């Protein structure tokens, strides 16, 4: 059998696989449809080039396999052809890059009305902090973390007092409201990634990173840690629940703020001292 047939089979097979594949991206649940569009565009241009290049190659090996005395072209260079190809490729590249950069520009510029959510990552789990009524998160440092202050909030920062602390890996979000995810890590690199939202960013100890998206489909989503962070990396999952405004309000009202926590702890301490005293 002529090897060209097998190569042809590989190309056709690839295209068919692409068309009929049961594996495809999860239904998008955020505003980043534009990312999917750029991917599709890249598929069209890139896939087209792949097929063309390979078909031309197959054509050549069919037409020009070895024959004694075949008339072979001797033309070391063809400036015109080379110029055309360079320009065509440059055009292709620009066609891919321009939309990509526009999408990226949106990605790094968070809308003003975005809700802030701080994600705290550690080996190997997640917790969250939401700004309280003032809409501002208090500053925090890893060095300040204690049992009483699980997020390391600076005690002298008034903005931190009403911050809502969620010491649990389930995060609730409102639909159709942009969120700015602020990522902190307490130890190593992590990455807060929900495939349906498309967006992702690493959490890095020592600095703060961010990304934003607008969830637009009610449902429950799994969070995967997408940056290697040690043996527990694969098990570092969490959950995001996107829900309606009402449910969200209900949920948020049940959560504890930092001052609640402090108050509770004072209370506990008090209790302990009382107990201790009464024991004496």
């Amino acid at each position: 059998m002529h090897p060209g047939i097998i190569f042809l089979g590989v190309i056709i097979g690839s295209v068919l696989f692409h068309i009929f594949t049961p594996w495809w991206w999860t239904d998008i649940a955020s505003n980043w449809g534009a990312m999917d569009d750029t991917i599709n565009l890249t598929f069209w241009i890139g896939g087209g080039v792949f097929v063309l290049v390979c078909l031309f190659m197959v054509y050549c090996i069919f037409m020009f396999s070895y024959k004694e005395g075949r008339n072979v072209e001797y033309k070391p260079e063809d400036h015109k052809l080379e110029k055309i190809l360079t320009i065509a490729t440059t055009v292709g590249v620009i066609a891919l890059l321009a939309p990509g950069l526009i999408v990226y520009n949106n990605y790094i510029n968070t809308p003003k009305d975005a809700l802030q959510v701080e994600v705290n990552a550690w080996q190997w789990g997640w917790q969250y902090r939401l700004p309280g009524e003032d809409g501002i998160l208090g500053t925090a440092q890893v060095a300040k973390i204690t049992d009483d202050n699980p997020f390391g909030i600076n005690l002298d920062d008034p903005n931190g007092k009403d911050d809502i602390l969620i010491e649990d890996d389930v995060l609730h979000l409102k639909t159709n409201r942009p969120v700015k995810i602020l990522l902190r890590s307490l130890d190593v690199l992590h990455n807060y990634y929900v495939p349906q939202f498309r967006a992702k960013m690493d959490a890095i100890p020592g600095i703060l990173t961010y990304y934003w998206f607008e969830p637009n489909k009610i449902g429950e989503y799994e969070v995967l840690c997408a940056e290697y962070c040690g043996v527990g990396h694969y098990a570092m999952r969490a959950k995001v629940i996107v829900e309606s405004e009402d449910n969200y309000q209900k949920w948020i009202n049940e959560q504890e703020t930092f001052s609640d926590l402090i108050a509770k702890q004072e209370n506990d301490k008090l209790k302990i001292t009382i107990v201790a005293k009464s024991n004496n």
Partner: protein
Amino acid sequence: MSDEYNQENKPLEAQSSETMSGTPSKDIDYVRPAELPEQDLYHGHSFITKWIFCQDAKVIGVQYFLTAVFTGIVGLVLSWLMRLQLGYPELVPFITAEHYYQFVTMHGMIMVVYFLTALFLGGFGNYLIPLMVGARDMVFPYVNMVSFWMFFIAVCVLMASFFVPGGPTGAGWTLYPPQAILPGTPGSNMGIILMLVSLSLFVIGFTMGGLNYIITILQARTRGMTLMRMPLTIWGIFTATALAMLAFPALLVSCIMMTLDKMLETSFFMPTILQAGEVLDYGGGSPILFQHLFWFFGHPEVYIVALPAFGIVSDLISVHARKNIFGYRMMVWAIVGIGALSFFVWAHHMYVSGMNPWFGFFFATTTLIIAVPTALKVYNWIITLFRANIRMNTVMLFCLGFIVTFVNGGITGIFLGNVAVDIPLSDTYFVIAHFHMVMGIAPLMVIMGAVYHWFPLVTGRMLSEKLGKWHFWFTFLGAYSIYFPMHYLGFIGVPRRYFEMYDSPYVTSATGMNEFITVAALIVGFSQLIFIYNIVASLSIGKPAGKNPWKANSLEWLTPEVPPAHGNWGEKLPVIHRWPYDFNVPGAKEDYITQTTPPSEVISAEVEKT
């Protein structure tokens, strides 16, 4: 003592006599007289100086080759173990999460650095550079020998890390701190230290070799060998070596700094960290800095393994398609341009790393610019096939396999380079599929093709074509069916470096594919036994090759003895009159004109001036 060397510095005359003779053809055959005196070589006599501490670049090349293939096989076995875990979790009880990550790390590092880099530059570079540019040996044979032994020690240190307490490092081949040196990662004590030491040794050893390759190519070419008459193989290896000389420093620096972070608790890369409820003694450092240093090395590194492959494949295609390579000049400029640009794109690996977000624009642009010269190379390969006379032998098959896999992998690279597209795909199996396509198979195809091509030169015997074809189809189809579907895992969103996928809804849908990939990987792996058998058997029963069995033009086939002896050229260095791609020149008697053929012998052929 004196017979250990060539005659005391022969004067220049030894080489320039040719132009002095007053033949009538003097004008068109004129080649500038020699600039350099005859090289002074040390000839070993004992077994040790001839085969162990040998200063002959050809022997050193073979030593590099064998050592690198050994590490490659270790890497291959590790990949089976990984695949077994991914396809059939819990089938192999001893693969725990710790072990899995150690396998991934060692697999990646071995394959990229100790296998491909060493094989291409140390192996092919040493063997081919002096032969192809017409030198007697590398310019500093002694340093060259030390280079190999440094590499050898580096490999030993690397392999030793499998046996130390805690095992080898499991930090991922990118070795990102802080996790690389914290207890949550396997092998974070001895393992990581040995890895860093081994890499440093590798860099030092490589620097010694690299200086040799660069200076041999720049300063020790034979008469008539201009830069624009060098085979593309040499251009690829040369540029790759230049990249390595400039990229490895960043690796060395990051290794030193990480070693200090580990051993002395400095805080170069370590910010304040909470471990098990305790704040560690670190503070103020920047993990991102490591990533920048690593990728300032890492991206040139991936071209270090790609450029020699580009060069070699150009030569193989040209020889076996019996046609000149199309657009030689363009190919050279593309190689050099890709090399130069590769220092300006490193942070495309860090789009989602939390670096300054504005960098995305810069790096996406530079990254996609690189696609243009690369695309030109691809076009030139396939245009070379057009109206050629293609021998469909094993070597050519591997070249075709290379083109298919490289274009496929290159285009997925374009996905990743475009920052908005990379965001959903980064750190998923799409990336894994991308780089195995473009680095795991494409250059390997070239290596295998190159082995079929140059085996007759090195050993004097041909490899079996029949076994070769089986080997090719198993490898190509098998590897393609491993990695082509793998892209779609990435689309689903399966993250890389996952020990187990189990319960996620969209991940479980891929179980079937994972099993399939594992089976394919095992088949491909085992089919390499055909190759190894072919090599071992052909050493004794292979058809004698004779001189220049492929009717190639380039110098390495034109030595007086095959396989070439120490000093390569016998009495007199060859004199070059043309580029190595004069195949099927109209008017010539044969379908090839070797580089040493003087114009007066092919008067009737319409060769283009090079």
